[in-house]
């Protein structure tokens, strides 16, 4: 395949950045999208130019580190697919592909396609855990958890923290990410005890980080590689309101 690329280049967080044109001949349609970028970098290197910086690690759709806007869509054209799991067979020969970093005030660009997503860590630090110390846990089967509940908690826990939800949201809201963790922990008996404190702190941190509010557009769910449901946002709101009402 022959591919034309327009890629966001930005030296550092102060630089204004711009789109730049590249061209690749002989792209194999079985290549993954990131392998195509590797190929481009190899080509740049031969010309003595700086490689394009992009984030990635596992390359199997589970670490959540990759993720760029491809032709205006988070992680590209396929549904429920991370950038690393996208393959060139999803593009046409001769196509022009636009590649940009995920954009949100709370996710500043560091260099080219690399962004800073540490805001997510701070949201988790605010309460996204069960406060259990090591070495004191009771026998695991002492609290049975019904299969449907465990599965529902799992559906929420499957979030990979890639940030696509924020990037596609017109308000740059982190509601899907935050609510997934809130649901995961609130559904389980182990996590339910702290649910009110947790939701207040996590929502507070989300706001403090500069993420916007959720206005129910649901673009996040549509673009989420893990099919995380917006119903978690409803649960988060419910948990939050409950917590505010019951606040002593």
């Amino acid at each position: 395949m022959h591919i034309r690329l327009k890629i966001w280049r930005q030296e550092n967080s102060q630089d204004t950045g711009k789109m730049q044109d590249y061209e690749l001949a002989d792209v194999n349609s079985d290549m993954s999208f990131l392998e195509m970028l590797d190929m481009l970098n190899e080509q740049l290197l031969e010309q003595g130019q700086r490689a394009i910086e992009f984030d990635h690690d596992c390359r199997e759709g589970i670490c959540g580190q990759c993720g760029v806007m491809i032709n205006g869509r988070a992680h590209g054209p396929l549904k429920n697919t991370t950038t690393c799991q996208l393959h060139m067979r999803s593009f046409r020969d001769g196509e022009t592909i636009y590649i940009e970093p995920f954009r949100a005030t709370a996710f500043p660009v560091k260099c080219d396609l690399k962004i800073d997503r540490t805001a997510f860590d701070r949201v988790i630090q605010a309460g996204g855990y069960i406060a259990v110390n090591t070495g004191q846990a009771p026998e695991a089967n002492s609290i049975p958890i019904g299969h449907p509940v465990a599965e529902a908690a799992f559906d929420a826990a499957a979030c990979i923290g890639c940030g696509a939800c924020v990037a596609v949201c017109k308000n740059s809201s982190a509601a899907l990410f935050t609510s997934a963790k809130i649901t995961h922990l609130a559904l389980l008996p182990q996590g339910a005890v702290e649910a009110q404190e947790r939701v207040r702190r996590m929502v507070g941190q989300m706001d403090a980080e500069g993420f916007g509010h959720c206005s129910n557009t649901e673009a996040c769910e549509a673009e989420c590689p893990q099919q995380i449901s917006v119903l978690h946002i409803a649960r988060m709101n419910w948990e939050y309101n409950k917590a505010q009402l019951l606040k002593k």
Partner: protein
Amino acid sequence: MLNAKIPEGPLEDKWRHYKEHAKLVNPANRKKLEVIVVGTGLAGSSIAASLGEMGYRVKTFCFQDTPRRAHSVAAQGGVNACKNYKNDGDNVFRMFYDTIKGGDFRAREANVYRLAECSASLIDQAVAQGVPFGREYGGYLNNRSFGGVQVSRTFYARGQTGQQLLLGAYQALMRQVHLGSVQLFARHEMLDLVTIDGKAKGIIVRNLDTGEIQRHGAHAVILATGGFGKIYYLSTLAMGCNGSAIWRAHKKGALMANPSWTQIHPTSLPQSGEYQSKLTLMSESLRNDGRIWVPKKEQEDRLPNQVPEEDRDYYLERRYPAFGNLSPRDIASRAAKERIDAGYGVGPLKNAVYLDFSKAIKDQGVGKIREKYGNLFRMYEKITGVDAYQEPMKISPAAHFSMGGLWVDYELMTTIPGLFALGEANFADHGANRLGANSLLQACVDGYFIAPYTLANYLADEIKTPATDVQHPAFDAAAKQVQDQLHLLKGIGGKLSADYFHKTLGKILYDKCGLSRSAEGLKQAIGEIKALRQQFYADLFIPGGLTINSELEKAGRVADYLELGELMCHDALTREESCGAHFRVEYQTPEGEAMRNDQDFAFISAWGWAGENQAPIWNKEPLTFEFVTPTVRSYK
């Protein structure tokens, strides 16, 4: 002389005895003690969180942007624990025995027993943290059996067990970060270990965002930096996995044990072209229902569904009737290679075998198969474009896990006092081959339940030691060396990329120090790696500057791999037997099975660094089997 510090007494009392006699650090003193944890995978996050809870002052480092992305996240299949929930006769001894046997009697009895002993508590801990393990309808935990064992002891969270366990550990770590007991340094890479008077006292790291070289001092350093299987370039590992932290510690005096033992996983996707950067693993759990076969005819050109039953060779079921498709990884991988090399491989490059679900779909219905493995089938389709409900998957062996790593004693301490190694970064527990689902277990158990005791035993004698002075000349020297190396690499100004050298090294290792090895091949490999290393220092090119620069990061890791790769070949060459994942073609039975030599090789090789271009120094830790008798490992 290596002292493994194995406690006295009967096997089942050793760990209890150790804990009863280990020194303690009083809570008031813990806040005076600083500990560095490098790595935030399961091993690193769990130890950093545990130490934070206990009141030590902890600094933790990783090269990803957040600890939640460490490679542990990728583990699919499950984690072992002997809970005997299925009433199928599982117990600590049986798990210990399976693990020792799985490792082909090349692991320490005491360590392996402790692993089995602590396994049940891990499930308790993870459930308390909210890890959503698979459950029965009644609400109790479910589990299944995994390669190499005949009881159900593998707990799983769909196909994402590693992710869920890591999130549990990450959340525990984040809680400590919030409480201020742990300081987190993400996107920081450790580039050297600092020792003062022979003890580990700190590290030199590079901030990957700014390029700044920093010094961090502590009373003890823990490396939990994962495995180095990515040395093969094509592997199931994440792109960033590397051996640099342990290699730099090795050059500072820590011994490297059994570096050549790499597990080659049988169920990876095959290589399909030169451009490929990784080989994706299809979870081993698929072998519970999938049947593995190749055509009976060489160069079979019919599509798999057109090959009738009588023309298929279910070679695992044929050769290993008792375990069949569930035989351990080394056996299954080698058997696949044997068929592929004999000319029966399938796929465009003739480098794969079929993993066929048609019988399972017929027996159980497609719905049941979808429920069990749906996400894996989806992943397979995303990568290959093939629907595995309709035709068999193509799978192939790929480098997966390093059984070798830094030598540690029973306390998980390396030969440098104050330097500990946890998880895949150490060599312990798996012997010459790892049974599926034992690695997540080891990483977690090291961090949650073992190192908190053994580290305290060391730190109890360090209470009076003042905080480490990072202006000490040892820090100056290490920082200078790191700077010099970065400038050296940047300054080479050649034409070839770090990836070029990595790929070339990977090919050499696959061919000559991979699934099978021979003295002749290994000697050639050593020569080729030396030459490649020379070429690296003459012809490498790194564009960009000294701040954010992934090419520079890669180059440093490849430089270390070029040294480690040579040591792997040395190690494989000196082990004149076949055991576990190490198959020396000269030592096999007439049926092609591995031939172990307990008489001469029941030891762990622990290599010392002698300097650049010097032969490594060979130390041996003899393995004594007091409680089990090594037997021929038969899965027939």
